[in-house]
């Protein structure tokens, strides 16, 4: 139950790349800029959404490709023929990503029925030191993989929040009935949003509780709520906060002010104050725990970009051990083979150079 026969055509710097005979561990090794992460990004597009770089569609086709690209892969099944998954943008319809399953057009959302793909990239390294908003987005992305309805509540809440803030910022005294109408929806979708985040953190915490403190830095997760998670209580808080919110020029209560708190177990130290190695280890622990929750009977795939090189040998060995125990197919990138010595024997290895791959 893993991806095989992965093809990239006119995608980023890959003119025509194929990866066959994949294994549990798959390594992409090459210089920076060779196109390793582009392979991971292509694979990440076999899930709904914008992929691991959150790139605009227009950035994906290769410079010389005329505006279109294709990514394909076959997914082995326990019984019967493998399922053929594909996603592409046609040069004459550059704004639209299309999806095919076994040759028939399908929705991007339907990709999620076949595969659960999780990833960790260097761009996420600063997560704990970053803004509270970045951590909320991180929680929302994890929640979305567990509860597809989350996106709609988040969008509605954001929209209602902008309406309320505009109304409160008005020179005229805001119409109370109009505020009521907006707050009904803020409370409804805000409560859904807040509760879904709490459920995600609770499930992750359960999964992480089984992980030993050492050698992996084990994170403890909590949400510091920005407002009541109960619909009626949130509605009341919004109504009672109107005067203060009007003075502040914005809404001071609600899940848009939720904060994800991460501390390192054992040390009881806020994650932002831990060493970069410890922060990376905690991110990995969260990513692995989430990948297992998200798989839910679907085959799982983990894309770990530049992860191994930044871990000390003990943590690296522990990571490989956990990945070996897990069910997911793993894709790793690195500039050299040394950090992968322990799994080199069992892994499929490709050397990546200038947008082309060569099996080692």
């Amino acid at each position, binding site marked *: 139950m893993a991806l095989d026969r992965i093809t990239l055509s006119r995608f980023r710097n890959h003119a025509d790349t194929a990866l066959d005979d994949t294994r549990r561990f798959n390594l992409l090794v090459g210089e920076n800029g060779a196109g390793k992460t582009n392979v991971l990004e292509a694979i990440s597009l076999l899930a709904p959404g914008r992929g691991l770089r959150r790139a605009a569609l227009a950035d994906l086709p290769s410079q010389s490709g005329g505006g279109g690209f294709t990514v394909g892969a076959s997914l082995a099944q326990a019984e019967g023929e493998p399922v053929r998954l594909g996603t592409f943008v046609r040069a004459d319809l550059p704004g639209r990503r299309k999806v095919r399953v076994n040759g028939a057009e399908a929705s991007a959302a339907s990709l999620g029925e076949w595969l659960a793909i999780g990833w960790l990239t260097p761009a996420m390294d600063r997560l704990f030191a970053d803004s509270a908003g970045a951590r909320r987005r991180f929680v929302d992305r994890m929640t979305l993989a567990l509860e597809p309805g989350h996106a709609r509540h988040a969008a509605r809440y954001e929209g*209602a929040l902008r*309406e309320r803030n505009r*109304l409160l910022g008005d020179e005229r005294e805001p119409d109370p009935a*109009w505020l009521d109408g907006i707050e009904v*929806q803020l409370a409804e979708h805000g409560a859904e949003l807040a509760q879904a985040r709490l459920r995600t953190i609770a499930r992750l915490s359960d999964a992480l509780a089984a992980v030993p403190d050492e050698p992996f830095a084990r994170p403890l997760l909590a949400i510091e709520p920005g407002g009541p998670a109960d619909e009626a209580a949130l509605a009341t808080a919004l109504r009672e906060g109107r005067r203060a919110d009007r003075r502040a020029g914005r809404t001071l209560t609600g899940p848009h002010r939720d904060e994800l708190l991460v501390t390192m177990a054992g040390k009881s130290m806020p994650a932002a104050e831990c060493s970069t190695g410890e922060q990376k280890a905690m991110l990995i622990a969260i990513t692995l725990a989430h990948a297992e929750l998200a798989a839910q009977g679907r085959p799982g795939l983990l894309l770990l970009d530049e992860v191994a090189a930044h871990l000390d040998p003990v943590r690296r060995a522990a990571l490989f051990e956990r990945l070996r125990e897990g069910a997911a197919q793993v894709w790793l990138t690195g500039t050299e083979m040394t950090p992968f010595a322990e799994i080199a024997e069992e892994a499929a290895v490709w050397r990546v150079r200038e947008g082309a791959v060569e099996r080692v």
Partner: protein
Amino acid sequence: MASQEIEKLAGALAQLPGLGPRSARRAVLWLVKHRGKALPQLLEALGAVQDRLVECEICGNVDTRNPCGICADPRRDAKSICVVEDVSDLWALDRARLFTGRYHVLGGKLSALEGVRPEDLAIDTLLGRVAPKDGEGGVDEVVLAMNATLEGQTTAHYIAERLEEFPVRITQLAHGLPVGGELDYLDEGTLAQALRARRPVG
């Protein structure tokens, strides 16, 4: 090479929703081919629309008479009003022939970001229709058939609150209407179900 007049007509038709340059050109070719009969008919119909189309002063519907055909129809239940955002919603709902009362067109939806305020919508005229008159009972039921958008639903809540002072039953479609013309493609079964399952607001 088509003449300037024909190019101009094709350009005007291409602006219509659902038509593009290619369909517009096909329509023009057809009109040229059938110019003997089709062109006078079309000209007459367009002229009539330009001369006679008016907005109904009661409900905001667009018709060739004022009050409109719906407001003037004695078989229509005057005690039941269905409130919609736009004329397109009214027409789509009425085409399905599911609602036996009359309508009220707001002319948009509340949006703080786009600067659409309560006074920009036909809300006061709605309150005027609902308010009990001397000796008469006014309206029994108001059905709020706003779009399923955030602004549509905010508007529905707003109107429900403004109507609270009147002895009137306020209901809402089981789910909001799809936006504008999309209603054309909504099958009658779905709409009938949404109307049947309308629920009290509050």
